[in-house]
């Protein structure tokens, strides 16, 4: 989680800028601090872009679900891990099957600690036998790269890509946009990864994202990020989308936000992320916290991450207390708000074991009022990945 400077801090740290900082400002972005960066939370779109989408969280969200949205996620950490045996080495730190990851494929995994908690969630792509590419959360870059440096063997080099751009193109029309600009990238399967030229710019492209829609994440040299963004919004399907809609889209897709839904005191089993533990890894449980996770799978956990649908129209935000019908404490909301595509309030939270089943009735305490809610399956909006 980002540490905010105290209001009376005499030396506030200036916000970092992504390669698109001035591009955002030219396109009517409202900039806010996020994980130490100045980031666009939403846009007031005008001209040709305004004709496609007027901007604002609601319109940007719905545009992404209907056409295609461009997200600047250059604040995230990108790095190469290089050296003989790099996949085996990374497996000592994550529950995922990295050794079995084929070249030009990507996988979602977790850095875990000895207590079974989650240090971060990340994407790992395999470029070659001795080369991996990782993308980590902006708010966890320092922690992650320090952890990797301290725990990977000497022969593995960590090449952090400072100043590199990362753009996400998401939505049902993302594939037709990419097919027009880079036919090779449009052929990638879900979680495929490739080195592709887009408009003459050498990029790494993965077919993945954080919205539940089909889409691509494009790693691009910092000096070419503006040119790539210009090329993408020159396509009639595309408008820029801010962090506000990024959050409502991922919430509807039931995807976790590190710092809200995941942290160092939460295990993958509690977080309903047991699927990230590779089948082969379950034979030996030889990763940090592995034996604890095996015990949790065998004997259950006291709490579980679930989807929560409030009965009425009132959103329940993160940190909302959840109580059972008999008044006993039942858990806490970790992400919550309004889902524009659901057209109603939605939330993700942790509830105690006996209430962690679809249809269980909960009560949310919002501004002193008790609001009834139901445990529902995730995601709230079906995923539409390209399988």
């Amino acid at each position, binding site marked *: 989680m980002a540490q905010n400077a105290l209001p009376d801090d005499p030396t506030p740290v200036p916000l970092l800028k992504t390669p698109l900082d001035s591009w955002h400002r030219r396109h009517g972005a409202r900039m806010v601090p996020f994980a130490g960066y100045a980031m666009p939370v939403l846009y007031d779109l005008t001209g040709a872009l305004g004709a496609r989408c007027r901007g604002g*969280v*609601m319109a940007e969200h719905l545009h992404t679900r209907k056409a295609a949205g461009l997200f600047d996620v250059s604040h995230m950490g990108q790095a190469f891990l290089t050296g003989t045996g790099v996949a085996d080495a990374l497996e000592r730190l994550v529950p995922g099957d990295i050794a079995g990851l084929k070249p030009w494929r990507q996988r979602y995994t977790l850095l875990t600690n000895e207590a079974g908690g989650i240090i971060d969630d990340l994407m790992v792509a395999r470029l070659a036998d001795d080369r991996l590419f990782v993308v980590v959360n902006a708010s966890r870059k320092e922690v992650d790269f320090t952890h990797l440096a301290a725990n990977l063997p000497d022969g593995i080099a960590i090449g952090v890509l400072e100043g590199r751009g990362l753009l996400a193109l998401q939505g049902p029309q993302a594939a037709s946009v990419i097919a027009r600009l880079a036919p090779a990238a449009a052929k990638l399967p879900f979680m495929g990864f490739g080195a592709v030229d887009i408009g003459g710019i050498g990029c790494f492209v993965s077919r993945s994202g954080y919205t539940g829609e089909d889409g691509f994440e494009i790693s691009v040299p910092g000096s070419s990020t503006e040119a790539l963004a210009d090329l993408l919004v020159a396509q009639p399907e595309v408008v820029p989308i801010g962090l*506000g*809609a990024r959050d*409502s889209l991922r919430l509807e897709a039931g995807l976790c936000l590190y710092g809200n839904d995941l942290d160092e005191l939460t295990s993958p089993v509690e977080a309903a992320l047991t699927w990230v533990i590779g089948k082969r890894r379950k034979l030996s449980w030889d990763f940090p916290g592995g034996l604890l996770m095996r015990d949790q799978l065998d004997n259950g956990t006291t709490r579980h991450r679930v989807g929560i649908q409030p009965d009425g*129209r*009132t*959103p329940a935000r993160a940190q909302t207390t959840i109580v059972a019908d008999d008044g006993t404490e039942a858990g806490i909301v970790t992400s919550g708000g309004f889902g524009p595509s659901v057209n109603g309030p939605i939330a993700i939270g942790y509830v105690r074991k006996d209430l962690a089943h679809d249809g269980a009735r909960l009560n949310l305490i919002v501004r002193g009022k008790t609001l009834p809610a139901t445990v529902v399956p995730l995601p709230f909006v079906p995923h539409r990945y390209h399988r």
Partner: protein
Amino acid sequence: MASKSADKRFTKDHEWVLLDGDIATVGITDYAQEQLGDLVHIELPELERAVTEGEACAVAESVKAASDVYSPLAGKIVEINETIVEDPSIVNSDAEGEGWFFRLELDDPESFEALLDQDGYDELLETL
């Protein structure tokens, strides 16, 4: 026109207040709705509720966040605008008209004079 606009006052928390006799109509300013963005949920105070100056008594929620709306003056809630509960987007499209929140019977109609006038509010906006 001059006397009409003179009856409209503002708070530093971005509420507007229109006085008619001892009844004040209260809403959030156009600046406030623009800052909040697309509103998705509104909560209004109960009728007959006594409120003090600066008391949080309504809530305007956007996709991202909930914001309190404060009573600009002391008084009693005598009317609420249920239409904006049904359709919060009215506050975005007409914040200082159809998007009013509630009407307040003022304890002291003279207290209205202490609020910011249009010039005072415009000056405040320039500092933001």
